[in-house]
């Protein structure tokens, strides 16, 4: 997968509510010389439908993979859920020809066919394996040495291990290494790999918010200046919902939540404005006031 051209698969969540993630990702990837091709006619990756219909999940994921295969390109996603679904279905269908035929009989209705020739990676895996930590370090012109931040990987980038499989789900390192590449310190804290609660929203909001609150409590204990995420849904739970959680539970956090490419972009010398810091709900001042203009 050494190609420098990648199909960007936005999925539903990113364009729906976290444009700051998309803006900062595109800026950072352009600076690293990665050429992105927009993915025409993409649909939902399928994951949100797995609980009610596994078959729907398989068909939607396979349809997207078939579209990518037509273009002869591999897929890059910003959402770990999308990456997880596309990677899993790609492997499942390649390993089971009967299932592949069955799913292809559905795709045929839309003139598509899954062959299994496109791979999918999430931004984090892509940065680690295809760009490489050394190149990322070399792109840093303004090391963020005064920043102390914490990471949140979220579930789908790590689990189930059998399909996610490139990092240790119990003690993940990739995001930490990439954060440290910017010059920032990455803090350890209690229960780092815990779920953000997003999938419970709409089914039981109380449980969802309690899960997010638990993490914010753990982060507060280590006095982090920001939380760094790589998932649109996790970001919504900690950033968009932080005020709601503070109100509901009588807490104060004020923990800015940045997308990893926002942090990297700062280290590459980009301005907070360019990286869409203005879209964040929790005031990111704690971070931005430490960023000195480049001389």
């Amino acid at each position, binding site marked *: 997968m050494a190609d420098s051209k990648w199909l960007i698969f936005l999925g539903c969540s990113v364009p*729906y509510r976290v444009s700051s993630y998309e803006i900062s990702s595109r800026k950072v990837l352009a600076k690293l010389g990665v050429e992105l091709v927009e993915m025409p006619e993409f649909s939902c990756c399928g994951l949100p439908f797995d609980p009610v219909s596994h078959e729907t999940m398989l068909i939607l994921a396979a349809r997207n993979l078939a579209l990518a295969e037509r273009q002869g390109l591999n897929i890059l996603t910003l959402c770990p859920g999308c990456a997880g679904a596309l990677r899993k279905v790609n492997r499942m269908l390649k390993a089971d020809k009967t299932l592949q035929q069955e799913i292809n009989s559905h795709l045929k209705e839309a003139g598509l066919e899954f062959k299994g020739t496109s791979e999918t990676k999430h931004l984090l895996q892509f940065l680690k394996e295809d760009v490489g930590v050394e190149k990322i370090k070399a792109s840093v012109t303004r090391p963020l040495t005064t920043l102390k931040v914490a990471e949140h990987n979220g579930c789908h980038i790590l689990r189930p291990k059998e399909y996610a499989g490139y990092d240790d789900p119990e003690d993940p390192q990739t995001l930490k290494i990439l954060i440290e590449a910017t010059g920032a310190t990455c803090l350890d804290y209690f229960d780092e790999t815990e779920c953000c609660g997003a999938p419970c929203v709409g089914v039981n909001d109380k449980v969802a918010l309690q899960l997010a609150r638990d993490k914010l409590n753990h982060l507060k204990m280590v006095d982090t200046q920001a939380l760094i995420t790589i998932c649109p849904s996790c970001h919504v739970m900690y950033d968009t919902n932080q005020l709601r959680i503070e109100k509901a539970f009588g807490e104060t956090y004020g923990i800015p939540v940045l997308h990893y490419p926002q942090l990297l972009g700062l280290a590459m010398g980009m301005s907070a404005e360019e990286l869409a810091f203005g879209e964040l709900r929790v005031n990111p001042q704690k971070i931005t006031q430490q960023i000195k203009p480049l001389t």
Partner: protein
Amino acid sequence: MIRAYEIDPKFKYELQKIPGGEKILKCFQCGTCTSDCPVARFSDSYRPRTLLHMAHLGLKDRVLSSDTLWLCAACFKCTDRCPQDVEVADVIRVLRNLAAEKGYIPQVFKDQARTLVETGCAFRIPDLRIKKRESQGLPPLPKGNPKSVKRTLKDVKFFEHLQKSAGENLNGRQ
């Protein structure tokens, strides 16, 4: 209390035949899944071990109609940590899929299904967002193709069930 007539002794074998449910009989009820489950920590009723136990016992209707079934966050902690290699999260997904076939479908999934067949996405991306992209320096959002999505889904049971329960045409058949 469990009543004998509630029990379907063949339910576990039914589950065993569905992809994802194959290893259900290996569960020895250790409770690792429940003790590591993030949802169980905050919910008084959600316990993955209990759901598996109910399935083993054959309390089919009870487990499929249970509201708590829908609380699983699909975080896959249980799957990664089960000492017996039961794909716990997948077993729960299998149970939910069966529940959905019986018409037990939480509203959020119904809403998403409707949005899917109308737009190709699980969420309806507001026009304002789509318009704003240009001023944000983002390329236009590629156009979806809901017709093509619908065609691929036209023989999927879930959409037929949904249609029946809603009395609406969701799967694109006239």
